[in-house]
């Protein structure tokens, strides 16, 4: 330990030296250093094992007075709940690529002998522009293809391969998978005769391949468009030259289209390739699945509100369409909630009342939804109840417990109702939209009316399909939403729908034997209205007159059904529930700040209104007024905004000096002002606002305009 300290000290010392003095006698010491370093770097790990505190990253709330157990609990809750969700998401993502993987594997299996065709089999995987999500896809490729077609897969990204040598080096290194410790070593020892090869010599790969033959050596270009086309052409022609010895195959991740990609390659290069293109699942459909598994899922501990999720979905559509970003935005929302809301401890399943503090109860009593609840209770005359909630912590604890339970019931309830509401595509919008609408507005009478109106107009055959689906939902639930069967809990509904189904079938059969087609009066009307408009009246009466007995029974049944749906489908919105603040998160701000940073905007604001950040009296200004107390760079920035694209430095200086100089009370000396001026200008340059102009001496070029 003592040695370490000494070493550390000398190290520190050297850091502050202006120049490094090389002392060969020091060498023993120097040689030791790596080993010591390693030791040091290990130390924190051991500490981590002893001291779990390093794991605890959440901060105590309540102005720091929250006790540690609660902090710990919140972090645990966050980690546990997110890990469950993440598992589901990963499952979906892996599943989504499966069919593509299978297609590519069978394509490779079907490749003919390469020697006979002279062409490299290549699979073009059309991924769309979401470059970030390709990592998982290619990871899966290398796992699957290794097993299924006995291949070795090397993944190349444009960043890895800036030139031909680097690309070859990586390919050879990854195939031979031999860890050479020092990167600088140009040689790779290889082959049984101990011959040495250059580390970019494919002969080395060949030598390795002869000892460990495989059916394919697959090179995957993950973001093929980002590769320089010359480099790709070079690599491809090299591969094709080796093709008679090494069975190369290629995978290209193509963001645009094979045609555009091909247009970038040399024609002779294209002729070395033959292949097929494969599509991956559309990111929008994956997003919908993730939506169900992460946001709408029945036992998701946290409900994300509609304004947040809508902005996430919108961003997904407008900007990036990258799934990893979507997933991490969700994770961030979860984290924010558990990090900043002390009341999340109540979401824990086991009641640990002993760790609760007085502050928790105070905080609950301050919740807007709780206040609203108490106020309505008083209005309703339940003074006693309201008082006990306000005074008695244990009462409040009970109430809270019920509230959380209630919220879980509500989640389940709303999902079940939504399952009915979305059956058969009666409402044409997609699930996420309906769900988010229901979260924010509840399932109100408008929605229900819209739904029942279209149910009313169903033809008997469509109605049987509809009822079948509803029953199927009741019986089987929906695993993608984590819903189990709820037929037992809703026996009435189940019985009602079953009866309606059998009656419909019976009526249909009856009508058929009589040679009629079954319809309700709602069907008839629409028909008549559509066909003849002039004879509307006559036709209408005529129509109702011809309703058969079965028809009117059927009409009755429809009426019953509509009534039943109207009775059962209503649901409150999340915000109506008491204490929803504990389990509902709907704020966009933290997410926006973190995921959509506005660096330019922030710098501009800091420069034009430094007071916002510095919060000192000297920089307080009204509007865009320039006062001498501002930091020099802020003054320069204000002047800068008024200039054209070429700035005369001398003019700038005189303008600056006019502000800070003689005429002011706290006038600066010219020398001091000049120093500050130069420093400010240097800062502007460092921030990329100006650069030396080649057009005119003594001028600088303006690089940035405000508001961009």
């Amino acid at each position, binding site marked *: 330990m003592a040695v370490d300290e000494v070493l550390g000290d000398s190290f520190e010392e050297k850091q502050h030296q202006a120049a490094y003095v090389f002392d060969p006698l020091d060498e023993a010491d120097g040689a030791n250093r790596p080993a010591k370093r390693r030791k040091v770097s290990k130390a924190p790990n051991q500490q981590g094992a002893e001291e779990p505190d390093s794991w605890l990253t959440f901060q105590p709330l309540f102005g720091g007075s929250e006790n540690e157990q609660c902090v710990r609990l919140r972090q645990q809750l966050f980690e546990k709940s997110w890990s469950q969700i993440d598992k589901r998401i990963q499952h979906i993502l892996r599943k989504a690529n499966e069919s593509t993987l299978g*297609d590519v594997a*069978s*394509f490779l299996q*079907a*490749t*003919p*002998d390469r020697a*006979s*065709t002279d062409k490299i089999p290549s699979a*073009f995987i059309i991924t*769309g*522009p979401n*470059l970030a999500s390709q990592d998982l896809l290619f990871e899966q490729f290398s796992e699957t293809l290794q097993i299924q077609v006995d291949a070795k897969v090397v993944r190349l990204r444009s960043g890895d391969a800036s030139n*031909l040598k680097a690309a070859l080096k990586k390919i050879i290194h990854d195939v031979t998978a031999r860890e050479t410790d020092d990167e600088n070593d140009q*040689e790779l020892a290889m082959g049984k005769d*101990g*011959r*040495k*090869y*250059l580390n970019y010599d494919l*002969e080395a790969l060949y030598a390795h391949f002869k000892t460990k033959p495989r059916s394919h050596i697959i090179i995957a270009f993950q*973001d093929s*468009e*980002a590769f320089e086309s010359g480099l790709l052409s070079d690599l491809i022609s*090299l591969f094709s*030259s*080796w093709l008679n010895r090494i069975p190369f195959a290629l995978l290209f991740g193509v*963001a*645009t*289209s*094979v*045609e*555009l990609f*091909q247009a970038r390659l040399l*024609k002779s290069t294209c*002729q070395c*390739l*033959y*292949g*097929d*293109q*494969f599509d991956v699942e559309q990111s929008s459909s994956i997003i919908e699945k993730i939506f169900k598994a992460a946001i709408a899922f029945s036992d998701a501990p946290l409900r994300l509100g509609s304004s947040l999720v809508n902005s996430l979905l919108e*961003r997904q*559509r*407008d*900007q*990036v*369409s990258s799934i990893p970003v979507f997933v991490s935005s969700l994770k961030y929302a979860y984290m924010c909630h558990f990090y900043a809301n002390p009341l999340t401890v109540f979401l824990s399943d086991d009641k640990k009342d002993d760790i609760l503090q007085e502050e928790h109860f105070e905080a609950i009593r301050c919740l807007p939804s709780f206040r609203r609840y108490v106020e309505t209770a008083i209005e309703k005359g339940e003074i006693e109840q309201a008082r006990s909630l306000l005074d008695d912590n244990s009462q409040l604890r009970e109430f809270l417990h019920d509230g959380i339970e209630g919220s879980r019931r509500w989640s389940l309830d709303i999902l079940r109702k939504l399952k009915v509401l979305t059956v058969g595509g009666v409402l044409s919008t997609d699930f996420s939209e309906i769900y988010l609408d229901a979260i924010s507005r509840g399932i109100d009478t408008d929605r229900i009316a819209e739904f029942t109106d279209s149910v009313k107009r169903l033809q008997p055959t469509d109605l049987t399909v509809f009822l079948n689906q509803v029953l199927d939902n009741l019986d089987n639930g929906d695993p993608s939403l984590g819903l189990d069967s709820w037929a037992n809990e809703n026996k009435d509904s189940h019985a009602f729908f079953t009866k309606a189904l059998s009656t419909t079938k019976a009526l249909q059969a009856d009508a058929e034997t009589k040679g009629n087609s079954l319809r309700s009066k709602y069907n008839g009307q629409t028909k008549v209205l559509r066909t003849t408009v002039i004879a509307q009246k006559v036709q209408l009466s005529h129509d109702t007159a011809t309703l058969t007995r079965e028809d009117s029974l059927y009409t009755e049944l429809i009426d019953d059904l509509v009534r039943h749906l109207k009775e059962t489908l209503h649901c409150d919105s999340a915000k109506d529930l008491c204490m929803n603040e504990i389990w509902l998160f709907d704020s966009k701000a933290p997410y926006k700040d973190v995921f*959509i940073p*506005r*660096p*330019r*905007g922030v710098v501009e604001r800091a420069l034009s209104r430094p007071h916002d950040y510095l919060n000192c009296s000297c920089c307080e200004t009204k509007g865009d007024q320039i006062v001498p107390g501002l930091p020099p760079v802020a003054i320069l920035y204000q002047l800068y905004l008024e200039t054209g694209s070429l700035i005369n430095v001398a003019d700038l200086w005189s303008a600056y000096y006019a502000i800070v100089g003689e005429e002011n009370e706290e006038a600066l000396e010219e020398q001091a002002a000049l120093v500050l001026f130069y420093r400010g200008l240097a800062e502007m340059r460092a921030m*990329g606002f100006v*650069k030396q102009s080649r057009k005119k001496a003594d001028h600088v070029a303006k*690089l*940035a*305009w405000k*508001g*961009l």
Partner: protein
Amino acid sequence: MNEMDSIFELPDDLLATLIESFPCRDAQIRALATLLYPRAAPCRNLIIHGTEATGKTAITTGLLEALQSATDDGPPLKYAIVKSAECVTARHLFERTVGSVVDALEWEGTASVGRCETLAALTVELTRMLKENVEQEQENNSRRFVLVFDGIDRQREAPPTLLPALARLSEIIPNLTTVFILTTPTPSLLRVSSTPQLYFPPYTKTDFIAILSRPPYAPPPLPNTTPQETVDLWTRYAAAVHDALAKPASRSLPGLSRACAALWPRFTAPVAAGTHRAREFSKLLVAARAYFQDEGVLEPGIVLSGHSRDANTNGSVFAAASTTNGSNGHAPAKKGREETKATKDLATLLPPTARLLLVAAYLASHNAPRHDQTLFSTWHTGRRRRGGGGGGATGAIRASKRTKHRKIARKLLGPSAFVLERMVAIYAATRREWDSDGGEEGVVGVGVDGDVGMAISTLASLRLLVRVGGTGGGDTMDRGGKWRVGVGWEVIRGVGRSMGVEVEEWLIE
């Protein structure tokens, strides 16, 4: 065995098979054999040159192999071929040369074979090995070593002294013949006339047909047809394909054989179906006329299975490639093709922000900066004046230009570079105008945030936006960098229309 009498003892029986498998090259084969065969007139250096795919590599390799395995009393020569195409650097070439000489000689002292970084080291190494080799077998003085540098004119990172230095090897090392295979001999090489040169001229039409009529290229007999009829049909067909290939550049042997193979199944489909006879060449030709005019068929790029348009007629197939292409499932292939059409235009592929940025980049590349003020500023009129409608002034300018102009439309010219900040400014200006759902809130909210930066880097990584000059690390945060749009007018028009914008109106010529 009376050839033995002649001064040049050429192994004629060997040559005969080679000449047969490479028609139209008998002169070259004989000459090459004479210049290489130890008992003929071996030379020190030899340059073989000729355009692509004229058989240089194939014939040299074939001949050397034949000669090596020729005589019973031990091979009269040994050889090594070094392909420059497989060598990434000059050093790589040197080490490969040493390596292949070691292999050819079955040299034992491999342990000593290590680095070979320079030409000098190569010379030393080769001298050591080859001299020793000669000494070992002194009794057989006629023994030679042939070192072939294939495609040496295309060697990457070659030092300027490479060729002269390699040419000196044979002066230092006895019994060594160095062969250089070049595609385009440099004028300086031609000036040194002491080195014998062997020219492989490009094939003529009759040559092509003669070559194509032989086994690796000729098809198996068609159904309902005698072999002789098939051969006759193929010959006439090959001639027709040769004439159909528009660009003489693609009239190389591989290009021609590829086109012939690609078209043959379709061309002969009527024969297989029994509607025409194999002898009715002109009728078949008329039936297949459309294909003969289709470049996509004659000169396919990357062969996509989905693109063999009527894969079902691929039934009678002889080319391995097309068989397997057809067989790996029609259904996915078909689906793939439909999808291609959809994904072909970027408009559907890119998210809205990226599309706006791409159009902004196009405008920045094709409008002169001095017009920006007129186009995008709302300062004076409150309403933007665009090139097309609205603004009378610019409209007039354009019209007058129209009448007298013989200039090339700006959009047909290459894109010019712009400063990134300018593109972002155009983006901000146009976004307010174009973003239909942005509304009033959009006017305030048009900010250039992280997402815009991300969209720019997506475009850059797809090379739709290209950084010019400077270093390779095109950092999109550096707004002072110079960029250029990477797509053409057609694409941009489509992208613009997908947002309801006629980009033409925003271009000032």
